[in-house]
């Protein structure tokens, strides 16, 4: 177990370093000039050259890379080109909003996905199963940005039940979290249905039924517990999906999180901020995978570490 943990941690560090390298190459080999972007169109060549050397962009690429990775090792993510603020501070100030949104998203995903999946499994092959699965397909295929706008129209504009956008109270969270959850809810419903059907076919369920236990008791006491836990343990794998949605949802709902920060930084080519948001997001994705790998064997003893 400890050996496994150590090797997984080493792997995680390696993957993150790979992400840094890929992101660094993409943002630096592009045919665009952040110094020119900062100086403006009218600026003279000298001004642009001045900014370039001030940002260290005139150095060879490997030196810039070395400086960035060296900084990372000390926990220094550099400074924003645009606002000259420290990026770690910037990311930390945006993080609570994104964590809140993600937590809300996971809540709604499980709230809809798990019961619907169980329902579909109990009625497998019948009309109710088909209806639920159609909804699961719709969820997985829904364009989140359009859905978010439509939810805003109906619930915030037409019926004025919820705020139009922004951040702060629990009411503000409901629509963005619902929008973020729609894809994942469909995914959980499908996975949950599969797990439940598999469990219902297991020998111990047949034994339970054979010895005359009530159907409700077999389902709730025996099948449910065994089927639900492994599905919930998959939350970690879901982080990548959520993080993709965060950019879109934050843009639609003016939600002041990491996704919005990334999107703003991309528009003005603020490379250190882009790097920071990519790295932070990748960190969460890797952490999620690691957690899933560690938790899964605990809830499903058939799976072993390795």
């Amino acid at each position: 177990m400890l050996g496994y943990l150590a090797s997984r941690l080493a792997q995680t560090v390696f993957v993150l370093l790979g992400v840094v390298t890929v992101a660094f190459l993409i943002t630096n080999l592009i045919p665009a000039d952040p110094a020119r972007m900062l100086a403006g169109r009218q600026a003279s060549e000298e001004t642009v050259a001045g900014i370039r050397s001030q940002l260290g962009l005139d150095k060879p690429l490997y030196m810039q890379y070395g400086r960035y990775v060296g900084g990372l090792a000390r926990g220094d993510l550099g400074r924003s080109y645009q606002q000259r603020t420290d990026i770690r501070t910037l990311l930390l100030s945006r993080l609570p909003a994104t964590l809140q949104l993600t937590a809300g998203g996971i809540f709604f995903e499980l709230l809809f996905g798990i019961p619907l999946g169980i329902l579909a499994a109990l009625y497998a092959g019948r009309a109710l199963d088909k209806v639920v699965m159609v909804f699961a397909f719709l969820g997985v295929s829904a364009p989140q940005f359009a859905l978010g706008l439509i939810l805003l129209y109906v619930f915030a504009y037409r019926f004025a039940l919820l705020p139009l956008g922004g951040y702060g109270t629990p009411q503000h969270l409901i629509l963005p979290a619902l929008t973020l959850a729609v894809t994942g809810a469909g995914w959980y419903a499908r996975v949950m249905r599969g797990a439940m059907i598999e469990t219902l076919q297991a020998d111990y369920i047949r034994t339970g039924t054979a010895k005359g236990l009530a159907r409700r008791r077999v389902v709730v006491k025996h099948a449910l517990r065994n089927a639900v836990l492994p599905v919930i343990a998959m939350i970690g794998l879901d982080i990548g999906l959520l993080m993709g949605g965060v950019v879109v949802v934050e843009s639609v709902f003016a939600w002041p999180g990491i996704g919005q920060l990334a999107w703003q930084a991309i528009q003005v080519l603020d490379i250190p901020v882009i790097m920071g948001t990519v790295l932070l997001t990748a960190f969460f994705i890797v952490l999620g995978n690691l957690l899933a790998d560690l938790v899964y064997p605990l809830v499903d003893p058939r799976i072993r570490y390795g």
Partner: protein
Amino acid sequence: MIQPHPVRAPRALPRVWRRLLRNGLGLFGGVVVIVFVLLAAFAPLLAPYDPAEQFFDGLTLEGSPLPPDGRFLLGTDLLGRDLLSRLLYGARISLTIGLVANAAALLIGTLLGLLAGYFKGVVGGAIMRFTDVMMAFPALLLAIALSAILRPSLWIVALVIALVNWVQVARVVYAQVLALSENDFVTSAQALGARRGRILFKHLVPHVLPTMLVYGTLGISTTVLLEATLSFLGVGVQPPTPSWGGIISESQSFFFTAPWLVAFPGLAILITAVSFNLVGDALRDALDPRGR
């Protein structure tokens, strides 16, 4: 986001057909896909108006878009252009990118997966570690950053999407080839002195084809959604070319007075994505050797 599980080369194609045709939802998806492809192909004949024409009577006196009526069936957009015509032409963009980008992703993914699975060792290890990195890379951010920087045209957007979407395919193909290459038919081909290229393309590729078919179909759904998202964020195909995500993006400011400008393109995206998902899922079930 669907669990990869192996699909085998079918022995009996008729059986696969029978299973496909028995899958009601898949059949429905297939019909919708065909209808959408035809609509896109014949857009110039079917569209009631030129998608770029700004009608003088296409706006209200206050200058806001017209709701659906007899003349403009789905209403007009903020420049007084016919929404139905723009949606029909938008289907061409969505489907072209869906097919091209996805075919490219499939090709890259399959090739790298095959190489990694067959050669294992250093080459395979390097390829698979690279996919580890790409799996951790926030795909949407990567796509946004790339297309924001590269000033997107249709082909750039397709390329960007392909660069993001090949990873999943590579991993599935890799796992499958890894399992296959332990089989006797590979060992005996090697023993008979078959060249590596021959083993790869004559013996292994046919077994991977069903997987490619399934992932290729499911991938179109992902691609259409990704293209729409990029266009919505303004880094997809650029106006005045009509794209579904772009129409929604342009209409955002008029949204509360003209909700149809979001609802109809949104529906078009949803229906396309769902249909390809349904077909892909039906294909997987039909090709699954464990199925009955």
